[in-house]
């Protein structure tokens, strides 16, 4: 189980970057970045998980009941916000690029050829 979880994290991280490298569309590239980022969510939450423990919310639960690690969850929350913002920025850039060049293929828009 342990190996499986961490293998999935490594795989998702790499496949997201692979998708971005071969991407022919900036919007597609942005979504690939969300895939890469999702591996960090899985990693964080998987690290903090405890078998048989509940969520770190003690509303109807007696204090002192085993609960999973709350810190990683708060880190993941921040991470989710970060991902939205980056995607929004890249999409905005993609729209501008499209307006200038009628293309959103990163290979076609290169003006910086040296």
């Amino acid at each position: 189980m342990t190996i499986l979880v961490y293998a999935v994290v490594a795989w998702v991280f790499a496949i997201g970057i692979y998708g971005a490298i071969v991407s022919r569309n900036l919007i597609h590239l942005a979504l690939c970045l969300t895939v890469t980022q999702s591996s960090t969510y899985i990693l964080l939450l998987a690290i903090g998980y405890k078998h048989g423990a509940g969520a770190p919310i003690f509303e109807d639960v007696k204090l002192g009941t085993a609960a999973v690690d709350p810190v990683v969850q708060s880190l993941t929350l921040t991470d989710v916000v970060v991902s939205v913002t980056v995607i929004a920025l890249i999409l905005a850039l993609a729209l501008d690029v499209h307006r200038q060049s009628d293309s959103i293929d990163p290979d076609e828009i290169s003006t910086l050829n040296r």
Partner: protein
Amino acid sequence: MSWALPLPVVVPLIAAAVLVATGAILPRRVQDAIGIAAAATATGFALLILAASERHDVLHWFGGWHPHAGLALGISFTADPLGAGMAALACGLDLLVLVYSWTYMRRQSQTFDVLILALGGAMAGFALTGDIFNMFVWFELMGVSAYALAGFMVEELGPLQGAINFAVTNTVGAYMVLMGIALLYARTDALNLAQIGRVLGHRPADRLVIVAFALIVTGLMVRAAIVPFHFWLADAHAASPAPVCALLSGAMVELGIFFIARVYWTAFAAPLHAHASGVRDVLVGLGVATALIGALMCLLQRQLKRLLAYSTISQAGTMLAGIALLDPRSLAGVANLVLAHGLLKGGLFLLCGVILVELRHIDELRVYGAGRRLPWAGVLWLLGTLGLVGLPPLGVFLAQQLLYEGGREHGFGWLAVVGAVASGVCAGAMLRAGARIFLGWGAREDELLSPEPDEHAPERDVSGRPLGIVAGIAIVLGLAASVVPGIEARTELAAERFADTSAYRAAVLHGAAHGDAAAHVSFSLLGVDTASALYGLGALAIAAATAAFGLWHRRLPPRILSAGARTLGPPVTVIRLAHSGIVGDYLLWLSGGALAVAAIWALTL
């Protein structure tokens, strides 16, 4: 002084938010004034913190969550002189840039000020934080505001592409950092750097620590523009407005380097102690490669901002090599280099803005000779160049002297030669460009230089003179950075404290005073070491020769020229082609580089 620590971060951020909230109400000039006032306040507080931290580390626990039995509950800011100095440099440049933009960006929207303020606050937070996840937050805030600023000129394709390359590569770098942080948390249950260091110090590094270290350092190297993670920098710089370049090159790149040092000394020094030479070799290698490739690419540019950008890459390589020596003296050298280079390069980029405003182009062949009517700008350009080459005893000279001494102690004496060559070649390119623009020397055409899309000048009615004054302030401060009395002793003392991991831990986790309040800092003048002076003069000679070659290479005998083209041509072409401007290529380089770094450490450590 503890109360002042959040202010260099919070004041600019609140000001940014207020500017947006009042965007429809307040006139533009009032908003600019608020922004400048906020940046000035932040700079003032950062300098205060710097002064206080000279005696002992200043700590601030957010929310009042002091450590519970040595276990950090909340987030801390920890100011030691190097961190506080970084923050002060970032805030100061932010202030200069805002003052500059008062004229330069006159017709632009207020969002420019907002993003500059957010970038400034983020840089200060990044320099001061003592918590690794908090570092990630500021890393992203820096990134997000900088990506948008890089794409500021949306009417052109070049800037957009530069911004996309910048955003995508740095985002992937950030994910690597985050993954490293998650691994560290899995091992140590801690996010505070001091605590991470304490837990990791219990036993030597294993695979997890090595992979975490590789991920974090790689992510930071993306931001610090180290080969082969550097591609974004030139694209982003070539296209951003000059004041944005000044901030990116003057402070943001250096912060990436700074945090590599921070994270190494606080967290990884103990577990990697046995492998210090392995870490050193890889990082020195990358630094040297960066310094040389940056210098070579710098030589091939004719667009001034791209030229300066490659010179930044080259200097970043020297900084990384200095940090990689893992020795306090070299660290002091790097600190001085960051200070002098930040001010000089910031000033030179601002000067590019002046050239663009006055001469309408920033391509050295297009404005050939046109700078004759701006002699003062030419003098500033020359001064900045001399500062960057380290003419004894000005500019980066002190930094290089310390670096050379540090290198010799570890058997890396040859680093001095590399440094002299790299800074000499970069300065040579700058001298060549300056001579073409301001003196009209040399040939009008130069087939060695890469053609670049030119930049559209901003409004016609902007006068360059007030802009030149701001640029001049930065350049003069940068020149003087070496000769401030006592600065050598102070940075060396500060670097020793920075590297004193156990005292740092005791200060953060147990509130022990770190630093020697009674330490006597003399105000002695800089002692110029003969060997370093010779290296400095040698670099200057290389610069002069490079510039002369650039200007008059057509007059060389054809046989020599063709022989040179045959031997040097192919490698240069390959390196040129690698800088393709295509984001997929850059990501491939990035993952290949990350793989190489991680694999070398995995196999050798």
